[in-house]
């Protein structure tokens, strides 16, 4: 099996990557500005829904039910999609999915494909596989196009170029589209992208999409988007291939009523997405003549097996947890070393691929709970983070100094009398570091505290000593 998540296995540990990124003032400014704007919009359209909490509960319940019967719903989807003229392929892992897609494209005899935004394709490194097979992929989502032309990496699951401002985007377009006199207004940039993309839409006959949902009952595939490029990709080409994680299935058409309220409001702060494409198999004389769905596992059934963390698969990739996260706000998505950044990335990546490649991710959170508060399907991210931390400790990935310190602290805190002894010891040991009642330079692991902050010295009398003296 070769399960991988983009290049996350080779990525730097989170703290190291973050150290560089927090020093990038432009990036921090861009990320802060963009997340602030989306958060404000989200809050406005969420507050106006009177039954928002009930919707979240329902969304969670539908997802949990589906995951409990995933095999059944996937087979139902396969039956109905096939009946409608589609073909369903099952891919155990990233390599297998890439192979299937490359073979399908080769069979068409084409050497170019257009793509609608799909993070799943970045997960399996599809573009690299296509290029290696001599097939050129063209991203058609504006943000993905910016990332592709900028030879950059996506930094947000909904807005992959969130870390770029329009002046930077103008530079990329000017260079890559050879537009000497391009302006930096949003209209200028959109117009340039439109001209560049229109030509591809009209000339490339094979398209690759992801999907937001699969409907088991009807065999339909659902893509929601803001730009209309997706609509063109799923309707203009001759051949359409949709790459979809197995967790994206919902049982009934009616379930979309819940998710199509939760998703756009959480993702972009819109009441509804401007473009909602739902298609079922092929229809003679209309749209693609050949339609394939590649169902991707790539570690998902492993996630499913862990009762304490399987709700990770409820995720509808709205990005609200990223926008709400105070850690993401400082670093942007690149620090997470994965196509999935932010709180959801911190729990998803280490579960999909082996923990040893991403043990720093569950620790990339202050556990403030802002992600859980906004998640439209109520994934208890902080709890899953702690669960994964326990796994990292259990598998021995945390430094020995920390393990020793934690063991010692556990013994020292196991009773009141031991705590009392520890207090006395701390007081006796701090004198070399104390200065005017403050500790400004501490050794060992505590040095990273005093690098940025002072610490009050342990006072001469503890509460319990005061209490005893008071009688």
């Amino acid at each position, binding site marked *: 099996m070769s399960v991988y998540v983009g290049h996350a296995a080779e990525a730097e540990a*989170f*703290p190291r990557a*973050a*150290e560089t990124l*927090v020093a990038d003032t432009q990036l*921090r400014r861009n990320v802060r500005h963009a997340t602030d704007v989306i958060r404000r919009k989200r809050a406005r359209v969420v507050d106006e829904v009177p039954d928002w909490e009930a919707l979240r509960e329902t969304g969670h319940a539908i997802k949990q039910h589906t995951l409990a019967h995933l095999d059944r719903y996937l087979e139902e989807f396969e039956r109905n999609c096939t009946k409608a003229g589609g073909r369903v392929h099952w891919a155990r892992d990233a390599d297998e999915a890439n192979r299937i897609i490359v073979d399908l494209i080769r069979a068409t005899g084409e050497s170019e494909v257009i793509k609608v935004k799909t993070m799943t394709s970045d997960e399996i490194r599809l573009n690299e596989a296509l290029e290696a097979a001599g097939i050129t992929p063209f991203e058609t989502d504006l943000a993905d196009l910016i990332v592709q032309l900028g030879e950059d990496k996506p930094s947000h699951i909904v807005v992959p170029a969130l870390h770029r401002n329009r002046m930077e985007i103008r530079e990329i377009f000017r260079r890559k589209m050879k537009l000497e006199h391009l302006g930096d207004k949003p209209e200028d940039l959109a117009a340039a992208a439109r001209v560049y993309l229109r030509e591809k839409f009209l000339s490339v006959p094979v398209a690759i999409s992801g999907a937001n949902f699969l409907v088991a009952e009807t065999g339909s595939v659902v893509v929601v988007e803001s730009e209309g490029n997706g609509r063109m990709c799923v309707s203009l080409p001759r051949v359409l291939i949709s790459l979809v994680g197995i967790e994206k299935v919902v049982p009934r058409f009616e379930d979309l009523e819940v998710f199509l309220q939760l998703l756009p409001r959480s993702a972009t702060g819109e009441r509804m997405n401007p473009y909602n494409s739902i298609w079922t198999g092929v229809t003679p004389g209309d749209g693609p003549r050949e339609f394939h769905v590649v169902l991707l596992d790539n570690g998902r059934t492993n996630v499913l097996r862990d009762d304490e963390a399987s709700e990770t698969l409820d995720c509808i990739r709205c990005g609200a947890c990223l926008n709400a996260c*105070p*850690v993401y706000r*400082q*670093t942007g998505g690149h*620090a997470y070393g994965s196509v999935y950044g932010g709180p959801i990335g911190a729990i998803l990546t280490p579960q999909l691929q082996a923990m040893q490649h991403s043990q720093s991710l*569950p*620790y*990339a*959170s*202050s*556990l*403030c*709970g*802002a992600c859980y*508060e906004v998640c439209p399907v109520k994934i208890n991210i902080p709890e899953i983070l*702690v669960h*994964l*931390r*326990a*796994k*990292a*400790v259990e598998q021995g990935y945390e430094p020995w100094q920390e393990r020793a310190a*934690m*063991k010692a*602290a*556990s013994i020292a*805190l*196991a*009773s*009141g*009398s*031991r*705590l009392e002894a*520890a*207090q006395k010891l*701390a007081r006796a040991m701090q004198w070399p570091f104390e200065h005017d009642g*403050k500790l400004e330079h501490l050794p060992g*692991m505590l040095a*990273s*505290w005093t*690098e*940025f*902050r*002072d*610490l*009050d010295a*342990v*006072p001469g009398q*503890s*509460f*319990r*000593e*005061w*209490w005893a003296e008071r009688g």
Partner: protein
Amino acid sequence: MTIDLFITCYNDTLFPDTGKAVVAVLERLGHRVAFRREQSCCGQMHYNTGYQSEAFPLLRNFVRTFADAEVICAPSSSCVAMIRDHFPKMAAASGDEKLVERVEEIVPRVFEFSEMLVDRLGVTDLGAYYPHTVTLHPSCHGLRSLGLGNKPRQLLERVRGLRLIELPEAEQCCGFGGTFAIKNADVSAAMLADKMRCVLNTGAEVCTATDNSCLMHIKGALSRMRTGVKCAHLAEILAASA
């Protein structure tokens, strides 16, 4: 009523004044306050860092210590969140039926300090006098796990002489997060810098909270930068009198 204090290990060791203030406030209201010497720590640091089995003896000690307490008051929102959110699960995972039962009995009797005053005792006016400008940082655990809402604010609004100044972006985490501040020191410091900007923009003399762990973090930077802005736990403000 006898109110048992769970002072929490770090308040006991590092912030004895907070404990003394809690005693003063509760006694002022005419209650008997008890402190059981066998108490120690709720295990939050261990649990949240992934050291579940090291956290477990601390849970046991807590349950042993407070088994027959009527009400337990703790001046730390994150420790109360630890007890409420995680003790039942930890007990269940141990497979010890007896422990599950005892935890089930104890948890509803644990109150965070502002909950104790506003919900359990039904008071908001403690007769305090604190002639300073104050801004309130709503600690993440108080805000999101305990849902303290405007309880701390209600209490502050009744303090004579106190002028409360709104903290901008108040609900943003200060970046402490226990061992997060050590393991991810750079990001933690970046978050703290944002919090600093907001606290300093208020022009307040004092920053308060329901949790000394956030305040320890915030104060760490206020002190390092020699801002002259002070931190004080909510209890210390409510204990102040003319």
